[in-house]
């Protein structure tokens, strides 16, 4: 064995890329034909939740935020025909609270992801396409933003932008702005990686040879290829933002109006956990299923598109 000639190339590869093993295709997914039952269950859950939340003001069985509590049932009564998720200790209908809170939660999460998608996407595409000095500066900024524990930075921003005179009272723009940190930097980084990979492809070279301007190449050649993987990645980001907003709400540092969001509802039930657990468990359960559905759909699509965060 020892008299074999040493093969230096194999020991010290010149190419960093060889360090990353090619991901086995879609191996994170259950081997099923088509999309699988879990995928469709998740889609159905999200459609139901989103429809209820969006249409909440027009639905007769959803109380408006701040409406009169029901005193005909005992305080903190469990689920019944009139109150599907039961009532809290004030007599407020919990189903309505969860729907109205979800409305705010989802609005914040989508706003944050749209901001991240547009700004992070633009910056990431510029960095990945033009490379060189532009890329180094943008990447450094992204690295610094990612160098902060996101939730801590969001808390700091809320502390600074939301204090009005005597109290800390965060409003919608402040919460959305603070949480955008969670979406801009990761989306910028992933877009940069995808753009980098596509800008080396033949069709881009072909377009350039034919004399297309950079702006046209970015718009017509790169953008259509970048959007699908970004959209898939955004699903995971929405889930992350829902959790983070819940954390802020749990701490009492998210928006208070028009309705308390899921995190605050979970926190509100804590004192009565032993006697009336439903006050905590229903909002927590709905939140869990929503995040699960988003992550699961993201996972399945990621497998189909073969996007892997670690490879970028």
């Amino acid at each position: 064995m020892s008299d074999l000639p040493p093969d230096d190339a194999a020991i010290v590869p010149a190419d960093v890329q060889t360090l990353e093993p090619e991901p086995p295709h879609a191996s994170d997914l259950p081997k099923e034909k088509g999309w699988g039952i879990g995928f469709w269950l998740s889609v159905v859950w999200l459609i139901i939740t989103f429809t209820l939340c969006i249409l909440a003001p027009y639905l007769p069985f959803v109380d408006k935020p701040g409406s009169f509590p029901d005193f005909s049932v005992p305080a903190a009564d469990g689920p019944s025909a009139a109150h599907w998720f039961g009532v809290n200790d004030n007599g407020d209908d919990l189903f309505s609270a969860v729907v109205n809170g979800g409305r705010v939660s989802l609005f914040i999460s989508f706003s944050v992801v749209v901001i991240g998608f547009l700004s992070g996407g633009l910056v990431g595409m510029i960095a990945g396409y033009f490379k060189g000095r532009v890329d180094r500066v943008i990447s450094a900024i992204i690295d610094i933003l990612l160098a902060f524990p996101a939730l801590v930075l969001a808390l700091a921003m809320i502390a600074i932008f939301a204090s009005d005179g005597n109290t800390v009272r965060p409003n919608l723009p402040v919460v959305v702005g603070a949480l955008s940190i969670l979406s801009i930097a990761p989306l910028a980084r992933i877009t940069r990686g995808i753009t980098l990979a596509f800008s080396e492809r033949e069709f881009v070279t072909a377009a350039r040879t034919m004399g297309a301007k950079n702006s046209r190449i970015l718009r017509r050649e790169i953008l259509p290829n970048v959007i699908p993987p970004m959209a898939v990645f955004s699903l995971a980001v929405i889930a992350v933002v829902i959790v983070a907003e819940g954390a802020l709400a749990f701490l009492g540092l998210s928006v208070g109006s028009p309705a308390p969001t899921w995190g605050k509802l979970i926190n509100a039930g804590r004192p009565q956990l032993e006697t009336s657990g439903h006050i905590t468990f229903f909002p927590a359960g709905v939140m869990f299923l929503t995040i699960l559905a988003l992550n699961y759909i993201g996972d399945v699509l990621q497998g189909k598109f073969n996007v892997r965060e670690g490879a970028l």
Partner: protein
Amino acid sequence: MKFLAIRLVQLVVVLLAATFFTYSLTFISNSPSQVVDTLLQIEAGAPERRAVIEDELNLDDPLVIRYGKWLGAAVTGDLGQSYSAQEPVSDRIQTRLPRTLALVFYAQIIALMLAIPAGIVAAWRADTWVDRGLSTTSIGLLAVPNYVVAVLLVYFFALRLGWFPSITSSDLKVTDLKSYLLPSVSLALGQIAVYMRLLRTDMIATLQEDFIGMAKAKGLTTRSILFRHALRPSSLSLVTTIGINAGAAIGGTVIIEQIFGMPGMGTMLVDAIFRRDVLVVQGVVAVIAAGFVIINFMIDLLYAALDPRIRSVRSAA
């Protein structure tokens, strides 16, 4: 050595940028005089204190100079005064930081202790019911926010069974494992899923390589192949992720500490936010950010130690 030097320069640059960002954040939305107003109000001080506070904050200097002075003081352990508690910020950080670090550390240990065996088994038995069960469990774990885990753990193990305290004592020792168990597990559960899935993917790739076939041909035991031959080359992305996850974990400690009433950095931060004690917020965020950057720096070195190729490739670049 060259690799280390490059990384050290990068470390200093990122540290400077992160602390400057933290420092200037205080003065972005509020003018310096508003900051002084707030601080005056907190300590309910007489108007003549205004000049003293302005002097303490070096408000006569431009922002960059002020930052320089602040940084110089911060490096020697002076982060200014907490106006609500009337004591130096660094004194409080000194007693609280170890508790938070211990929480993150215990959570990572628990997560890795469960995730590494689970990931190895899932990869070894890939596409069997064992693997599918573990993958399903992990995607479920990922969907539970750590604060929901904490609330549930308090409910079952502290209130129902009474095995662990639901609120930690105000002079919590870092060796008080009984008080640390529930908070650490709350933080660890989500991370188990992340680590397990990463290790599984990389391990499946490693197990297809020639040297594993060679090891099998030599008649080595399965355990020896999995743990001694396949684990190390499969653990690279796992190690990087530990660094990134430390950030998520530090963010998580804020809320977990709040739930368990732990006297750590997180409760200090939330408390300061509600009291609008800006210098405390600034100090805590700066320390957390610096700590996170340094953890990631150390992870990077560990990464290089695990895979010697990184050193040569990076210093050549």
